[in-house]
């Protein structure tokens, strides 16, 4: 049963993948997305059912017995290194499994509609299923190498799906960027794993948990291990300094952004930190770094999000910012709060991304929010669900985003690892989040349309008139025939909207079911700072609500009237420029790393390669040519010359034997 959870999506991948391969072999005729998507959805749905049943089983059992384990086969056996392929289903992985398979199923359903006009839906769904399988291996892996298998697998699928429309060079290079940046992080992960093995001699989580308690290890080594693993997390979960790939990853299809780059894969860093919380708990320095990086990323990404005009870019930076929140939570020792935010974020961010996907689909591939507006009337259902997601992420009670975010802010303030400074950064980020999400919402749905609205000519238009390649032509000449998305896309959104609204219930402060549930697997929640009073919690909660409302109100003041927005923008022109250019981080990396590397490569190519290596290789070739020519003059076809050479050989043998006789 446990093995079935990752195996089912893998089967879906095999079916769709071989279908696609066979189809390509026979000439690549397009198939309806419904069939391929149906298979994929069925497998991931079945996987969800399995996960749910096991989860209920865990719920029903004693607290000590809440771990299911299955060893599929013996994977690696090399001396002291014994790694069975073990899947372990406990409190933490059960939650992640439910999120992955549940949200994953909804996104699969959504994709059936969204990818309806794609040329190769089998390929898309095969990748999507493969991703789910790897993601499930990642969270179910009972030891670090198995986790790493999933970790690399999701990286691969992320790459494949970002550059899914690989004929566009920009999208292909976005995929490459994601892959390469992740490799830097993976190096850290690997080194951390090696160091764990050399220190503790085991890579299994359960064994490690015991070993950490019994084996005295110097704080320096523990900090090094944690920081190396955290480097891996910054790569996969898009934190400073390796966050640059995530915004570019929006080149992929929108369901991919929702599934991989918002709900699941990017949260694997938080999963890793929570899974190894018993190690992080022993290293206050590492926790401090995690908290600082998390807070800095949260604020930094939020400022960038303000000035972006691409609907998906805004959401991407928002994701980076929210991931920063989660690391902030982990960094102050509140792992349960981090996991809580992972879950609520998965709901509302998947909702927002798919809502954005629905908008993009309805607007015929338009992604610039400056060219939208007034979609409230044209896409009423999307408007409604998007509004829920917006309020949830902005932190309006009682929606889930408020509950989890407030929990993190409280812990950042009150935990023994936290401080007022971390709380201020977090609160500022919350205000900015409310502001830029409101800006996005206002510019997209409210006001009047800033594009030419075309009335649909006939009923059949929806079905064939808006393929991916003729959307823009329509917009230019006849206006945009905006249409509400089909039910197959709206229904998953509605489910997610409900979840976004109510998911906060599992983690209400002081009676948090989640914290209680995760208590056995995570490190103990940190003690509160002595000077913090419990009444402060209510004050801070009020403050964070106030901040969210202020952010939203400010957005309405500025963007409610576009003239105000323009004036505002000209007043702060230089800041706006910096922000819309994302603090020039890409340019900075380009100048600091890419350009010097290119220059070095050019030098190596022009001088070392051409003048040294090529010369060596060519002169070797020349040498063999010339020695060949020399040897060829011996082979001139004259039998007598051959006979003479035989004579010479005989003479030399005689000479050699005489030399032997006389010495």
């Amino acid at each position: 049963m446990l093995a079935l959870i990752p195996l089912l999506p893998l089967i879906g991948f095999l079916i769709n993948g071989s279908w696609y391969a066979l189809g390509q072999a026979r000439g690549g005729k397009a198939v309806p997305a419904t069939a391929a998507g149906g298979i994929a959805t069925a497998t991931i749905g079945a996987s969800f059912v399995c996960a749910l049943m096991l989860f209920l089983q865990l719920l029903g059992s004693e607290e000590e017995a809440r771990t299911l384990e299955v060893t599929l086969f013996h994977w690696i056996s090399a001396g002291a290194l014994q790694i069975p392929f073990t899947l372990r289903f406990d409190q933490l992985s059960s939650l992640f499994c439910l999120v992955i398979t549940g949200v994953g199923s909804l996104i699969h359903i959504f994709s059936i509609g969204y990818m309806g006009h794609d040329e190769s839906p089998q390929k898309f769904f095969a990748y999507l299923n493969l991703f789910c399988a790897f993601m499930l291996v990642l969270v179910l892996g009972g030891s670090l190498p198995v986790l790493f298998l999933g970790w690399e697998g999701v990286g691969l699928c992320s790459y494949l799906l970002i550059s899914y429309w690989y004929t566009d060079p920009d999208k292909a290079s976005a995929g490459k960027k994601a892959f390469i940046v992740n490799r830097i992080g993976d190096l850290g992960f690997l080194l951390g794993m090696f160091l764990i093995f050399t220190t503790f001699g085991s890579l299994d989580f359960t064994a490690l948990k015991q070993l950490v308690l019994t084996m005295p290890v110097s704080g320096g080594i523990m900090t090094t291990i944690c920081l190396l693993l955290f480097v891996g997390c910054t790569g996969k979960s898009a934190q400073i300094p390796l966050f640059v790939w995530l915004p570019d990853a929006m080149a992929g299809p929108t369901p991919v952004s929702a599934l991989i780059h918002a709900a699941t894969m990017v949260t694997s860093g938080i999963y890793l930190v929570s899974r190894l919380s018993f190690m992080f708990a022993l290293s206050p320095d590492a926790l401090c770094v995690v908290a600082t990086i998390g807070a800095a990323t949260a604020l930094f990404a939020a400022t960038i999000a303000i000035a972006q005009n691409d609907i998906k870019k805004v959401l991407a930076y928002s994701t980076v910012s929210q991931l920063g929140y989660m690391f902030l939570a982990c960094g102050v020792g509140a792992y349960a709060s981090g996991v809580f935010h992972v879950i609520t974020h998965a709901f509302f961010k998947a909702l927002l991304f798919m809502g954005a996907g629905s908008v993009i689909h309805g607007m015929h591939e338009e992604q610039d929010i400056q060219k939208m507006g007034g979609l409230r009337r044209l896409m009423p259902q999307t408007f409604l669900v998007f509004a829920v997601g917006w309020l949830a992420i902005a932190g309006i009670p009682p929606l889930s985003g408020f509950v989890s975010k407030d929990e993190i802010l409280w812990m950042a303030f009150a935990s023994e690892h936290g401080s007022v400074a971390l709380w201020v950064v977090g609160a500022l980020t919350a205000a900015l989040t409310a502001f830029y999400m409101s800006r996005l919402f206002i510019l997209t749905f409210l006001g009047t349309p800033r594009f030419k609205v075309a009335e649909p000519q006939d009923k059949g238009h929806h079905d064939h008139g808006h393929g991916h390649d003729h959307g823009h032509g329509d917009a230019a000449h006849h206006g945009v025939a905006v249409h509400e998305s089909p039910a197959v896309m709206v229904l998953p959104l509605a489910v997610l909207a409900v979840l976004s609204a109510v998911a906060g219930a599992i983690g209400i402060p002081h009676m948090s079911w989640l914290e209680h549930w995760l208590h056995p697997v995570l490190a103990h929640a940190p003690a509160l700072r002595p000077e913090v009073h419990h009444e402060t919690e209510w004050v801070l909660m009020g403050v964070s609500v106030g901040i969210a409302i202020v952010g939203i109100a400010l957005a309405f003041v500025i963007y409610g009237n576009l003239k105000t927005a323009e004036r505002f923008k000209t007043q702060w022109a230089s800041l706006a420029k910096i922000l819309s250019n994302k603090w020039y981080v890409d340019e900075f990396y380009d100048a600091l790393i890419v350009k010097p590397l290119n220059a070095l490569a050019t030098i190596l190519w022009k001088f070392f390669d051409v003048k040294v290596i090529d010369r060596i290789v060519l002169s070797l070739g020349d040498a063999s040519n010339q020695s060949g020519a020399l040897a060829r003059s011996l082979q001139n076809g004259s039998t007598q010359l051959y006979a003479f050479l035989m004579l010479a050989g005989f003479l030399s043998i005689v000479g050699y034997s005489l030399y032997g006789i006389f010495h």
Partner: protein
Amino acid sequence: MIPVPVPVILSFCAAIFFIGLAGVLIRRNILVVIMSIELMLNAVNLTLVTFSAALDHPHGQMAVFFIIVVAAVESAVGLGLVIALFRTMRTVDTDQIQLLKG
């Protein structure tokens, strides 16, 4: 029974053999080359007979017998080749016949 010292006979054989070898190496007429080879074969035969006599062992003569047979066959085939060669290339000059070129 052997009238002269064996080393003298053997040296004579060596002389004939190397005269033949020199002929193979320095002459360009393929017919002369074949004749030189016959000289070398004869020198070897004589060596074998000498040893046969010196060691009181008739098997050396048996070897000579077979060598003579093979040499006869060799000359027949070799001369057949010369004729075929001359017919196609109109020459028996070994410098002109360089088909073994690498």
